[in-house]
C-alpha cells in the first residue's frame, strides 16, 4: 500500500468546503448591498427605462431626476428640516448625557445609585409605547408639531444608552489628571470641557454617530409629532411620496439616494464607532 496521507484525501473535500463558504459569503454580501445598489441605479433611469428595465444597470444616466427631486418632491425643504431636528436633538442629548455621565463617574454622592436605577428603568420604556401621553404632554407645553419637542423626545430616547457609554469612557480617564485641574482652581464644567473631553472623544463620537443615525432615519416619532407637511423630515416627506397611488419611481429613488448617501459616507468613515455604539448598549 502506498502511503496516502490523510490530508491528501481530504484536500478536494476541504477545497469544496472553502469554495462553498466563499460562495455563500458572496451571496450574503450581495443581497445585503442590493437595495442600496438598486436605488442608486434606479435613480439614474428615465421613467420609461425604469418600467422596462427595473432591475438592471441604467443604460443612460438621467441626472435630472435629482434636480427634479429637489424641485418637485421638495427634498431640499425636507433636508433642511431633518438637519435642524438632528442638530437640535444631538445638542440636547450631548449636554444632558455628558453632564449626567460625568456626575455618575466622578462623584460619590447620596442618591447616585438611585439615579442609575431610574435611568436604567427608563431604558426599558421606549418612547414608542408612550406615544399618546407624549402627544398630550407636548401639546400642553406648546411643543407639538415643532422641531424642539421632537428633538427632546429623540434625546430622551437615546439618553440612557448614551449615559452608560459615556460613563465607561469617563471612568477610564485617570483621576490624577482631574485632581491636578482642581488644584489649579478649574470648575467642573471647565474640567469637563478642557481636560476630559479630548480624552473621551471616541466615546462622544460613538454616541453622536449612532444617535444621529437613529434621528436621521426615524420615521415613526416624526410621523406622530410633526403634523404639518411643511415641517416634514426627509423620511416623513418621502413616505407621502411613496404611499401615493402612482409612484414616480426614478424621482423617489433619487430622493432616497440623497437620504442614504450621508449615512453611507459616515458609515464608511466611522465604521468602528457605529459598531461600538450599537453593540455597547446591548452587550452590557
Amino acid at each position, binding site marked *: 500500500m502506498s502511503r496516502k496521507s490523510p490530508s491528501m484525501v481530504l484536500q478536494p473535500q476541504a477545497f469544496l468546503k*472553502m469554495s462553498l463558504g*466563499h460562495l455563500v*459569503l458572496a451571496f*450574503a*454580501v450581495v443581497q*445585503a*448591498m442590493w*437595495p*442600496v445598489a438598486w*436605488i442608486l441605479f434606479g435613480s439614474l433611469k428615465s421613467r420609461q427605462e425604469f*418600467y422596462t428595465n*427595473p*432591475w438592471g444597470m441604467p443604460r443612460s444616466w438621467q441626472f435630472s431626476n435629482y434636480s427634479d427631486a429637489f424641485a418637485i418632491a421638495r427634498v431640499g425643504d425636507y433636508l433642511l428640516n431633518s438637519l435642524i431636528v438632528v442638530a437640535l436633538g444631538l445638542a440636547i442629548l450631548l*449636554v*444632558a*448625557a455628558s*453632564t*449626567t455621565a460625568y*456626575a455618575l463617574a466622578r*462623584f460619590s*454622592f447620596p442618591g447616585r445609585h438611585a*439615579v442609575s436605577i*431610574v*435611568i436604567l428603568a427608563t431604558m426599558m420604556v*421606549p*418612547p*414608542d*409605547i*408612550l406615544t*399618546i*401621553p407624549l*402627544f*398630550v*404632554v407636548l401639546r400642553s*407645553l406648546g411643543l407639538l408639531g415643532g422641531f424642539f419637542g421632537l428633538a*427632546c423626545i429623540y434625546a*430622551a430616547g437615546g*439618553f440612557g444608552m448614551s449615559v452608560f457609554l459615556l460613563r465607561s469612557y469617563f471612568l477610564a480617564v485617570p483621576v490624577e489628571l482631574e485632581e491636578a485641574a482642581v488644584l489649579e482652581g478649574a*470648575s*467642573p464644567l471647565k474640567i469637563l470641557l478642557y481636560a476630559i473631553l479630548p480624552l473621551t472623544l471616541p466615546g462622544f463620537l460613538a454616541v453622536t454617530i449612532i444617535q444621529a443615525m437613529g434621528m436621521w*432615519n426615524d*420615521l415613526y416619532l416624526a410621523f*406622530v409629532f410633526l403634523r404639518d407637511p411643511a415641517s416634514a423630515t*426627509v423620511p416623513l416627506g*418621502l*413616505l407621502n411620496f*411613496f404611499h401615493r397611488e402612482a409612484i414616480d*419611481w426614478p424621482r*423617489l*429613488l433619487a430622493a*432616497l439616494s440623497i*437620504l*442614504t448617501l450621508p*449615512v453611507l459616507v459616515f458609515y464608511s468613515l466611522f*465604521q468602528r464607532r457605529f*459598531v461600538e455604539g*450599537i*453593540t455597547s448598549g*446591548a*452587550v452590557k
Partner: protein
Amino acid sequence: MHRQVNAPYALLIPGMTLLSVFLIVPSTYGFWLSLHEFDGLTVGAWNGLAQYQAVLNDPEFLGALWHTVLFAMIVVVGKNVVGLALAVLVSAPLKGARVARTLLFLPVTMNIIVIGAFWTFFLSARRFGGLFNEMLNAVGLSAIESSWLSSDTTALASVAAVEIWRWAGLHMLLFLAGMQAIEPQLYDAGRMDGANGWQRFWNITLPQLGPVLSVSILLALMGAFVRSFDVVWVLTRGGFGTDVVVTHMYNEAFQFSRFGRAAAMGYILFAIIAAISFTFLFFNRRSGRNV
C-alpha cells in the same frame, strides 16, 4: 469645598429634567389618562379599569395582538437564526470575511423607506416588475406566486421576513462579540476529542453564547412588540392581516380620537413585554445558563 458637594447635583439637572419631562411624567400621566374618558382634548369622567376591560374584550384589538404574537415568533426566531448563521459564516477563515462583516451590517443603517421601496417592488406581482415572482416562475414554482405584501395569507410573514432581513446584521454583531469572548482552548480541546465543526458549534459555541443569546432574544422580542410600526406602516399600512398593536393603537388615537383607549393599549403592551421578559429571564436563570 461647598462647591464640591453640590457639583454632582448641578450636573444632574439637565439630564434629569429631560428624563422627567419626556419619559417619567408622560408614563405616569398617561396611566392616569388611561383611567379616564379621554378624546384627546378634554379629560372626562373617571373610568377606573373599564378602558382596559373594553380593550381586552375588543376583537379588533385581540386580532392585532394575535398578529403581533405571530409576527414576534417569526421575527425572534428568524433574527437569531440568521444572525447566528451570519456570525459563524464571517468568523470562518474565508477571504473577505472581515469586509463582509461591515457590509452585512449595512441594512441596519438603511432608512425604512429605502427598505420599503426595495422590498415592495421586489415582492410585487410580475406585471409590476416583481422579481421574486419572476424567479419563482423561472424555477417552475409559479404555483406559489403571490402578491406577497398584499395578500391576507402572506403579508404578515412577508413583513416579518423584511424585518428579519433588516436587523440580521445587528444580531450578527452581537453574536460575534460573544464568540470573541470564548476561550480558544475550548475549541482545541474539542478538536482533540475529535469533534467535527458541527459538534463544536453545538457543544461549545452555542452553550458559551448563552448570555449573549438571551440579550439577542430579548432585543428581538422588544423590537417585534414595540418597534414594528414603521416597517408595517411602510409596507402595508396595517392592511392584509398585518394590523399589529402599535398600528392599531395609532389608528385608535389619531383616526378615531379614542386617546384614553389608545393609552390603555400602550400600557397593556408594556405589561405584556414586561411579563414575557421577566418569565424569560427567570427560566433562563433557573436553567443555570445565564450569569
